[in-house]
C-alpha cells in the first residue's frame, strides 16, 4: 500500500515539474508568428536557428557564462579560507560574523540594486561581467561559506594535525591536502553559486545598461508589440542547458548529504 502511494506521489511530482517545461519545449519547436513560408503553429527548428542568427541573443549567452564563471571562481576563492576558519577555530566574533553572512544572504537584490548601481558607476564597474559577478557575490559568498564549512567539518582534524607536524603551512595544507578531500563540496558549492547567479535578474539588468547584457535581459527584450513566443521559449530552453549539465555532475554529491551547520 505504501509503495502504491509513493509511486503515485512520484508520478504526481514528475508531472507537476515537467508540465511547464513540456510547454516550453513544445512552443520552442513551434512557429508562433506569421511568416511567409512557414505555416503558423507548425513544427520548426527555426526558433533555435534564429537565436543563433540574432547577435545580441547569442552574445548574451556568452555574457552570462562569463560573469557566472567569474562569480563561482571568486566565491570559492574567498569562501574557502573563511569556511576553514569557521570550521577549525573558535574565536571571538564568530557569532557576529555569522550574523553578517545571514544579513547579506537575505538582503533582496531589489533593495541593493540602486545603491550598488550608483557605487558601481563611480567605480567604472557598469556594463562589464566583473561588476555583475561582484554584485552576485554579495548573496553567494555566504552560501559558499556555509556549504564549504559543512564539508570541511566532516573531515577529521587528524588530517590537519598530521600535515602540520609534517611541516605544512596552513595555506599549503588547504590547497594540497584538504582540497582533494572536499572536492565534492567544491562541486556542490559551485552548483549553488552557479544557480543563484545564472537566474538572477535585478542586478544583472541594472548593472548592464549598454553592454554585456545577460540572457535574462536578452529574453526580456524579446517582448514587444509582436512577440515571437517561440523564439522566447527557444532562448529559455538554451538557458536551461548549462544548469542541467551542472545538476548532472553534482547529483550524487547532493544526495550523499551535507548539513548546513550554522
Amino acid at each position, binding site marked *: 500500500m505504501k509503495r502504491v502511494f509513493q509511486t503515485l*506521489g512520484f508520478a504526481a*511530482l514528475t508531472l507537476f*515539474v*515537467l*508540465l*511547464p*517545461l*513540456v*510547454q*516550453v519545449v*513544445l*512552443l520552442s519547436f513551434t512557429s508562433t508568428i506569421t511568416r511567409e513560408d512557414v505555416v503558423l503553429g507548425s513544427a520548426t527548428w527555426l526558433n533555435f536557428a534564429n537565436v543563433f542568427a540574432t547577435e545580441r541573443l547569442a552574445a548574451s549567452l556568452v555574457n552570462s557564462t562569463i560573469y557566472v564563471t567569474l562569480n563561482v571562481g571568486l566565491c570559492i576563492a*574567498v569562501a574557502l*579560507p573563511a569556511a*576553514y*576558519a569557521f570550521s577549525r*577555530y*573558535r*574565536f571571538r566574533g564568530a*557569532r557576529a*560574523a*555569522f*550574523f553578517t*553572512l*545571514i544579513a*547579506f544572504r*537575505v*538582503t*533582496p537584490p*531589489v*533593495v541593493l540594486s*540602486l*545603491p*550598488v548601481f*550608483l*557605487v558601481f558607476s563611480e567605480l567604472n564597474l557598469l556594463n562589464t561581467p566583473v561588476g555583475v559577478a561582484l554584485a552576485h557575490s*554579495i548573496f553567494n559568498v555566504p552560501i559558499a561559506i556555509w556549504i564549504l564549512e559543512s564539508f570541511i567539518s566532516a573531515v577529521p582534524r587528524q588530517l590537519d594535525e598530521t600535515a602540520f607536524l609534517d611541516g605544512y603551512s596552513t595555506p599549503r595544507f588547504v590547497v594540497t591536502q584538504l582540497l582533494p578531500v572536499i572536492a565534492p563540496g567544491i562541486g556542490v558549492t559551485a552548483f549553488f553559486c552557479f*544557480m543563484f547567479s*545564472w*537566474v538572477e*535578474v*535585478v542586478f544583472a539588468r541594472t548593472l548592464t545598461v549598454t553592454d554585456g547584457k545577460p540572457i*535574462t535581459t536578452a*529574453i526580456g527584450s524579446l517582448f514587444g508589440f509582436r512577440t515571437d513566443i517561440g523564439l522566447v*521559449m527557444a532562448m*529559455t530552453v538554451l*538557458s536551461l542547458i548549462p*544548469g*542541467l549539465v551542472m*545538476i*548532472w555532475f553534482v*547529483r550524487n554529491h*547532493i*544526495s550523499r*548529504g*551535507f*548539513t*548546513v*551547520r*550554522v
Partner: protein
Amino acid sequence: MTKDPNRGRPWLYLLPAFSLLALFGALPMAINAWHSLFDVFTLDSKLWVGLDWYREILTSARFYESFGRSLVFSAAVLAVQVPLGLLIALNLPRAGWLRSLGLVLLAVPLMVPWNMIPMIWLSLIDPETGLLGQAMAWAGIDFDHRFKALHTWILLIVMDTWHWVGLVAILSCAGLASIPAAYYQAAAIDRASRWQVFRFIELPRLRGVLLMAVMLRFMDSFMIYTEAFGINAGGPSGATTFLSLDLGEEIKAFDYGPAAARSVVYFAMTLAIAFAFWRAMTAERAEAA
C-alpha cells in the same frame, strides 16, 4: 583548537570574504542611507529633506497594505512548501537511479531565469494554446488571473511552489542523508514507529537545514519581485502589490530620494528578520554542542 597562539588568524582567513561584502554590500548601503536624506534631482544637485521620505513612507496606508500582503504571501508559501518539500525528501528512495532522477527533477525549476518563470506559467494557462489552459477550459473552469484577485494569488503560489519546493526538498534530502545509519538501527531495535523515527530522530537532526530553508524561502517570498511583477504587475487593482513592487516602481521612475529611503526601510526589516533567524540558529548550535 583554541591553543593556536596566533589569535588573529581566523580573522585573517575571513578577511577576503568580509572585505568583499563590506566593499560591495555595506558601503553602497551606507551611501544609500545618506542619499535617503535628500531630494535627489541629479547626484550633483540635491536638497536636504532630513527624515521626510521616511515620514512619508511610514505614514502611508499603502506601505502597510503592501506589508500585510507580503506577510500573507510568505505565510502561504511557507505553509505549502516546507511540509511539501519535507514530504518529498522523506519519500524519495534512499539510493539508486530513481533518487538521482528525483533530485535532478527537483533542481530543474531552480535553473530557470526568474523573469522567464511568469512567462512559462502564463503560456501554460493560456486557454487557446496552453496545456493547462486548454485542460481547464475543457473542464469548464473559468480561470482568470488578470481580473480575479483570488486566481492571481493561486497562480502566484502554485508558480512559486513549482519554482522553489525543490530547494526545500534538496536541503532536507542533504540533511537526511547525513544522519548516521546507527540512529536508524537503534530505532529499529527499539521498535520505534515511522512517526517516532521522524519526530525524535529525523526532525531534530534536520533542524539546522530546515531553519536555513525556512529563512531562504521566507525572505525570497517576502521580497518577491521579478516573478510577481511578470504575472500581473501587482494587479488586479493592487491585490498582488507586494513590498518590493513599490520599490521597483520608484526605481523605474528615477525617484532616487524616496527609493533610497525605502531601500533603507526594507534593509532594516531584513536585518530584523535575519536577527530572529540568527538567534534561532545559534541557539540550535549551542544545543548541539
